[in-house]
């Protein structure tokens, strides 16, 4: 079976600033990989390269064996059209730090938007699916609420349901709890824990060391656009090999 995510020597610059300087990463199906690191280490940028929200400058990015953003033929790379990139993204769910729910739609409409507009499924089927998904994230009673009527934790759970509605093979989480009040972090982590238990492949950029230790299969520490160290979360957190990892962990733990 092909790895779910396979990044090889990924480089990314914004102007003259190099943000990713050769990142290699493999995430197997069913694996939960957590990425930690100081701000500016490139961890969020790397995540955004996985679904081509950012275009990489060199290296390759494959999801489920498929090259992202390009097509390879006759030994040449062809850029994919907008619609083909959109097609690749259908299988990759993404959850943002600042939720980015659609404010003009209710919770249920947010969840229905992908299946309805992209997959053109019937209204009834989408509504049933939205009800089931909102129930799964514990928000069955909030289906008709608009995002501004929900707390941050509730909004993030709707955002997770919205991503799940496309039945993704991979879920990307970009600091999903960093914009939340401390007492709301738990409810979002609970939902993510449930997802991991159900076998979802997850790539999680996070500052929640507890979550990484408990749920993660792999912990990756990034700094300065490079992967400094990776391994089993308990191992890395308890006995970091690298000085930089030690220094970082001593500040956050």
């Amino acid at each position: 079976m092909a790895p779910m995510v396979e990044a090889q020597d990924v480089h990314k610059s914004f102007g003259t600033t190099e943000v990713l300087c050769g990142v290699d990463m493999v995430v197997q199906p069913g694996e939960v990989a957590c990425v930690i690191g100081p701000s500016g280490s490139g961890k969020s940028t790397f995540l955004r390269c996985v679904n081509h929200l950012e275009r990489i400058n060199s290296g390759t990015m494959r999801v489920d064996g498929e090259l992202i953003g390009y097509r390879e033929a006759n030994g040449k790379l062809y850029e994919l059209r907008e619609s083909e990139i959109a097609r690749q993204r259908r299988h990759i769910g993404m959850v943002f730090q600042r939720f980015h729910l659609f404010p003009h739609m209710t919770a249920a409409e947010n969840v229905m938007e992908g299946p309805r507009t992209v997959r053109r499924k019937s209204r009834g089927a989408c509504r049933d699916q939205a009800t089931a998904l909102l129930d799964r994230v514990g928000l069955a009673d909030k289906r008709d609420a608009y995002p501004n009527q929900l707390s941050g934790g509730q909004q993030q759970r709707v955002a997770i349901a919205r991503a799940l509605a496309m039945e993704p093979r991979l879920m990307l989480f970009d600091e999903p709890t960093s914009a939340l009040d401390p007492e709301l972090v738990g409810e979002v982590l609970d939902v993510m824990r449930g997802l991991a238990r159900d076998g979802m492949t997850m790539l999680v950029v996070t500052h929640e060391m507890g979550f990484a230790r408990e749920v993660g299969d792999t912990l990756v520490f990034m700094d300065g656009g490079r992967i400094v160290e990776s391994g089993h979360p308990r191992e890395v957190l308890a006995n970091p090999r690298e000085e930089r990892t030690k220094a970082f962990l001593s500040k956050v733990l």
Partner: protein
Amino acid sequence: MVAEQTDAGPAPPIKAVPVRHPGRWVGVAVIVVLVAMLVHSFLTNPNFQWDVVGEYLFSDPVLRGLRNTLILTVLAMAIGVVGGVLLAVMRLSPNPVLAGAAAVYIWLFRGTPVITQLIFWNFLAALYPRLGLGIPFGPTFVSVDTNTVISVFAASLLGLGLNEAAYMAEIVRGGIQSVDPGQSEAAGALGLSRTQTLRRIVLPQAMRVIVPPTGNETISMLKTTSLVVVIAYFELTVAVQTIYSRTFQTIPLLIVAALWYLALTSVLSVGQMFIERRFGRGFAIGDR
């Protein structure tokens, strides 16, 4: 706000002497007197000639002018809104030629007077006596006399509509740019195409910002249509001008036109309120 509820029932409301505002009462008195004087003069000053106003308010030429004002406003705004959305999307396109073309259009049409544009369209035949369809720089298959296609009405519509499109383009662009870029990212991450993102996610949110200035534009258009007098077309203002130039009852006839403009503006304002409510869903502050 959280109200602490105790078993003893709600606490009794505060009884206190409210702050007095004598200044406000003076202001109210002044306004009441001024309004009374104004109403009194409206009713008693014979120079207003209310009988003449009544005589012409529903007269045939005024109603025909009114009809033209309405038709021109609705159609010119339709051209303006559709053209404006198109130009705004072009202006925001990553392709520099499309963006540049839109920028030049907006520059040209905002930068020249509407009167000039109206006269230009009316005299198009002087520049291009015949309009034809064919292969660029090649043979022409069909062609017609420009003057038969560009009637005074068509020239009015082109002049007003194409000018409006330039202004609407900037209003729409402002609306689109007011939407958080995270919204487009979230839609893209779900697998929506750029067009779907624009139609389903960005424009509905941009509407909140687009509608109020568009209301302004529509009300302004209602009155700008009177410029068609320069190409010998007519609408409400031209209709009353024609009458008072003959009868010299200038003031009552201007009141006739003003009353109709006020009536139309009132209807438009109510319509705008409903549209704003429709697109304000999910944004109201008191929602929680």
